[in-house]
Every structure is written in C-alpha cells, then in structure tokens.
C-alpha cells in the first residue's frame, strides 16, 4: 500500500527538481578507473586464470588510486452565482475562533506606533492546508479556512483560493473574506487546480487547471481560464490550452486596462519555459503570443515570478544566476536585469513599481520606472539582520515583514515588521518583532 501523501509527494518533486545539477563531466569521478574495471570485467568473463590475477591487481590499484584521488579533490464548470456582485472581504469580527495555543506577539514600547489592525496576516496552521487570519497587534487567530494555493486581491481585502478537494469532493475555486465565501468554479473529476492571479482592478481572476499525467509527464492538459465577477462577465472561459507537451500554465497577472492576461508555462524543472500573453480583443477573440524564455540562459524560476499590483510589470529571479529580471507585462523581451549577487528575495511593494530585496544588512527598494543603465535606483533601510529574508509587504505597502530566523528558514523564528511610510526616502525604519508568528503566508487587509 502506498502510504504517501500525494500532495506532499507533488510538492517534493516540484521543488527538489529545481536543484541544479553539476556539469555532466562531474557526474563521475574518474573515467579512467571505470574503463579499467570494465575491461577487467570482460577479461574475467573470458575465464582466464592469468587474466583474473591481473584483474585483481587492477582492482587493488584502483582502490589505491581512489584513496589518493579522494585526498586530492476536461473543462471546469463555473458555479459562481452571477448575482454576486460584492466580493467577500476579510472581516476580523466575522468568525472569531480564539485559541489558547495561539502565540502572542512580543510587544515592544514602539509597537503601538507600528501596528495597524486594519491589516493582518494569513498564517499557515499546523494542520496541512489550513490557514488562519491574524491581526497585527495581538497575533490572535481570527478565523481559518483550508486551501491548496491562493492569491490575495490587489487591495488585500479578498483571497481567491483552491479548496483541497480530497476524495470524491472536487476542487473548487473560491473567494473568501472573513466568514463570507463565494464559490466560482467546481473542477471536473480528474482536474487539479493550478495557479491563480487577480486582475489589476480586483474584479476578475485568471486561473489554470491541470489534468492528465503528473507534472512533467507528456500526457497532460493544462488550461488558462478567466472569471469575471460581474454578473454579465465571462464565467470560467478558457483562453488558452496546452496539451501533451509537459508544460503547465501558471497565470501571472491580468491587466484589465490593457485587456492582457499573462501566464508562464512551466515544466518539471520548475523554470518558466515560455512567457505567454493573451490579449482579449473587443470581438471576444483571444490573441495569444508566446515567448521562449529558455533561449537566454536558464530562464526564470516560475515560483519567483510576480506582478506589480497594477499588473504593469512582472519580475522573476533567474534560475542559474539569481539575477533579478523585470519586464513590462506585454513585452518580456523589453526586460531589464539587476545582478542578484548577494541579494535575498525580490518582491513588489504593493501600490508601487518598487522591487524590494535584502542586501547585506539593508532592505532596498528599487523603482523600476527610475532604473537606469546601472540598474535599479534604490533607497534603503539599514539594520536588517544579515541572515534574514524578505517575506512580504503589508498589503498597502506601508511596511515590510522580514523573517529573522537564525537558520535562514523563512518559516522559522521571528519576524520583524518595518514601517516604510509613503515616501521611501522618508522611511522611518521603525520596527517591532513578532515572536513565533508561525508559517507566514502573506499580509491581508481587514474591512
């Protein structure tokens, strides 16, 4: 009996397959010894006693040299009600389920000036797939839901997510805010939820579904779809399909003002093999353009690809060099690159065109609109621990959350909230540290 959790197996394969391999020439230590042993094996098969003695001698010699060298070296069915016109929004009062196990934040004397309970966090709980809302000042658990992949709306008020869909229950695409939920799509049997991306105006989502073979297999199908929340909008319309190629769609962004949906095609290696844009034409046709992104080096790591909140720009981290690349949504080829040497993380600051990353003991904010030949034009906040990582920004971009775990793990240790203010040049850098916040997913906004 296979007692393995399929979701966990998928997660392991998806992530560990991204570990780069050494050059082919490094796969074996010594071609010479291999040849010697193979030759000696053939002699042994010939059965000559003398040859056997020689073979033994060769093996002894081989072992000696080993020591020396060692020392040297199907279609989804939309189920959302068209009558639904108001989005569920995150409401901390809607479903309060306090728990004694919820750790409290460490409150420092400056905390009152930094916490803002109009905002909170989405945190992964101990139970697989379970996520809960917490507010900033108390870190108290407010309400929770089970998910298997989600995306926060551009304004931070709502969350679109896939339900786990175990056993006979199919996966559903839903939108949650506090206790209120809206079901958009119910997948058919055999389909799996892929990625989700909100439109720039928060009035629609793009999502992908996968079916058929496992990730990386040839017998697969993946679709890119759109769902407009307006009653007279498109509800679950497929705008692109990929069949039997081993590539899977992952939506990135939807610029509603330009009517362009962007997505990546990713395969078993975890890189973005192709960048795809689909323009939704006035006559309701879909104009698809596909850019091969593998031609320039190893390409971008799909997991790192994110769009600015207005969906005008996309960023990704290069698979091999860790360079930060950003490009206009409609034109991958017009992208620019910033060296990734010594930099940790790369995230869009909500509401801006600034890319945030850590370098040394500083949090840098670089505005792509001002990027010149020397790269991003940056302002910085000092005093960030050198081993920390940038986890997320507050949903309105007014603060950054830094993981300061001693192992470098983003899930372990403490988190520091740094207030940024409206103008990065006027950054105060005021901060407060949460103790044991848990598996932080992202920042959300309460209404």
């Amino acid at each position, binding site marked *: 009996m*296979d*007692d*393995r*959790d399929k*979701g*966990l*197996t998928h*997660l*392991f*394969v*998806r*992530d*560990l*397959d*991204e*570990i*780069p*391999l*050494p050059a082919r020439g*490094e*796969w*074996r*230590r010594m071609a010479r*010894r*291999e040849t010697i*042993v*193979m030759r000696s*094996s*053939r002699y042994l098969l010939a059965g000559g006693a003398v040859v056997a003695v020689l073979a033994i001698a060769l093996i002894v010699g081989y072992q000696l040299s*080993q020591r020396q060298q*060692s020392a040297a070296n199907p279609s989804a069915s939309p189920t959302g009600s068209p009558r639904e016109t108001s989005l569920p929004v995150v409401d901390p009062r809607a479903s309060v389920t306090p728990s004694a196990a919820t750790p409290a934040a460490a409150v420092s004397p400056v905390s009152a000036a930094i916490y803002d309970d109009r905002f909170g966090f989405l*945190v*992964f*709980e*101990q*139970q*697989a*797939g*379970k*996520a809960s809302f917490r507010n900033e000042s108390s870190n108290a658990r407010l309400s929770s839901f089970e*998910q*298997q*992949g*989600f995306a926060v709306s551009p304004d931070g008020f709502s969350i679109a997510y896939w339900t786990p869909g175990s056993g006979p229950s199919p996966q559903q695409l839903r939108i949650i805010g506090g206790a209120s939920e809206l079901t958009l799509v119910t997948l058919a049997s055999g389909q799996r939820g892929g990625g989700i991306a909100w439109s720039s105006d928060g009035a629609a989502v793009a999502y992908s579904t996968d079916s058929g073979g496992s990730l990386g297999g040839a017998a697969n199908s993946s679709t890119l779809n759109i769902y407009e929340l307006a009653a007279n909008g498109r509800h679950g319309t497929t705008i692109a399909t990929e069949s039997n190629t081993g590539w899977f769609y992952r939506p990135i962004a939807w610029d509603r003002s330009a009517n362009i949906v962007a997505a990546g095609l990713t395969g078993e290696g975890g890189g973005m093999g192709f960048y795809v844009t689909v323009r939704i034409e006035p006559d309701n046709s879909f104009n698809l353009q596909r850019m091969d992104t593998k031609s320039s080096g190893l390409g971008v*790591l799909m*997991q*790192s690809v994110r769009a600015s909140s207005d969906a005008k720009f996309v960023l990704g*981290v290069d698979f091999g060099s*860790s360079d930060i690349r950003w490009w206009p949504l409609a034109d991958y080829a017009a992208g620019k690159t910033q060296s990734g040497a010594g930099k940790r993380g790369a995230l869009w600051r909500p509401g801006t065109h600034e890319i945030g990353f850590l370098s040394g003991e500083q949090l840098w904010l670089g505005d792509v609109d001002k990027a010149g030949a020397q790269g991003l034009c940056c302002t910085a906040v000092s005093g960030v621990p050198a081993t920390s*990582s940038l986890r997320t920004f507050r949903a309105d971009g007014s603060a950054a959350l830094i993981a300061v775990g001693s*192992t*470098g*793990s*983003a*899930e*372990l240790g403490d988190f520091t909230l740094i207030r940024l203010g409206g103008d990065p040049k006027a950054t105060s850098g005021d901060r407060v540290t949460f103790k044991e916040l*848990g*598996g932080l*997913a*992202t920042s959300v906004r309460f209404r």
Partner: protein
Amino acid sequence: MPEIAPERWGDVYDRAFPQVYRALVATTFDRDRALDGLHDAFEEGLRNPPSDDRNLEGWLYRVALRKTRRGIFRAQREVALDAGSSSDEVAAIIQRLEVGRLLALLTERQRAIVVAHYYLGLTQDEIAEGLGIRRGTVSATVSQSLARMREEGIARG
C-alpha cells in the same frame, strides 16, 4: 536475476544521477558531499553491481548516503543550511524552495528518510532495509518530521 553488466552500469547510473543527486543535496545540504557519495556509489556499482536495475535510484541513494554518512546515523551531526553548505549557489536555491525551507527544520537523519519517502518514492520497508533501521523507526521518523514541517506550514502558498 543477472547482475547489471559493467558495460551497462555507466548508462543506468547516468539515468539515475539527476534524481539521486538532488535527493542527496536535499538531505545533506552539501553539494560536495552529495557528489562524493555518488562517485563512491558509482564505483561500488562497478565492483558489486546491484542485482537488477529496478529501483536503481533507491540503491544508489542508500549506498551514496552510507558513503556520505560520516555521522548522519551515528553522531547525527547537524549541518546548518547556510553555514555548512559547500555551495552558496545550491544553498541559495534550496532556501528559495518551500520544501527546502521546511527540510531545514529537520535533522539530517530525518531529512534522509523524508526525502527517500516523498521524493525518491521508497517505501518505508525499503528505507528500513536500506538504512539498516527498524521499520517502526522509519514510520515514527516520518510522522515526527511531517508534524514538524506542518507546524511551520507545509501548506502551499
């Protein structure tokens, strides 16, 4: 069942190399140790090839792990992700991976078992046999490891 002929060994090793190498890096967080272990396993296969190439990845992983052990199952020496890694590039990539960050929460011994189970697809019986430990130990280690990882948020984001 005839052994794998030495002439074929190189081909079957090359086919298995990517998955086993990645499993070893995820276990040791050390590119050099992973590569050394695989080199030794390759040579072991030249001398004493496995009886057949079914589950060759499991055979290579077990042998390579034994070669790289240098304390995994004895001293349980811990290797910090960013302190002990021999390759900054590999360490940086592991840190970017959700699974990599969660594996960093575990001991190297726990990682060896969890990676074998969930990445290489070895059964708990195969892991117990290959690593020379009791099946109950494997089962308990998997449970403890999952609890630790879920505690910190195994759920996908």
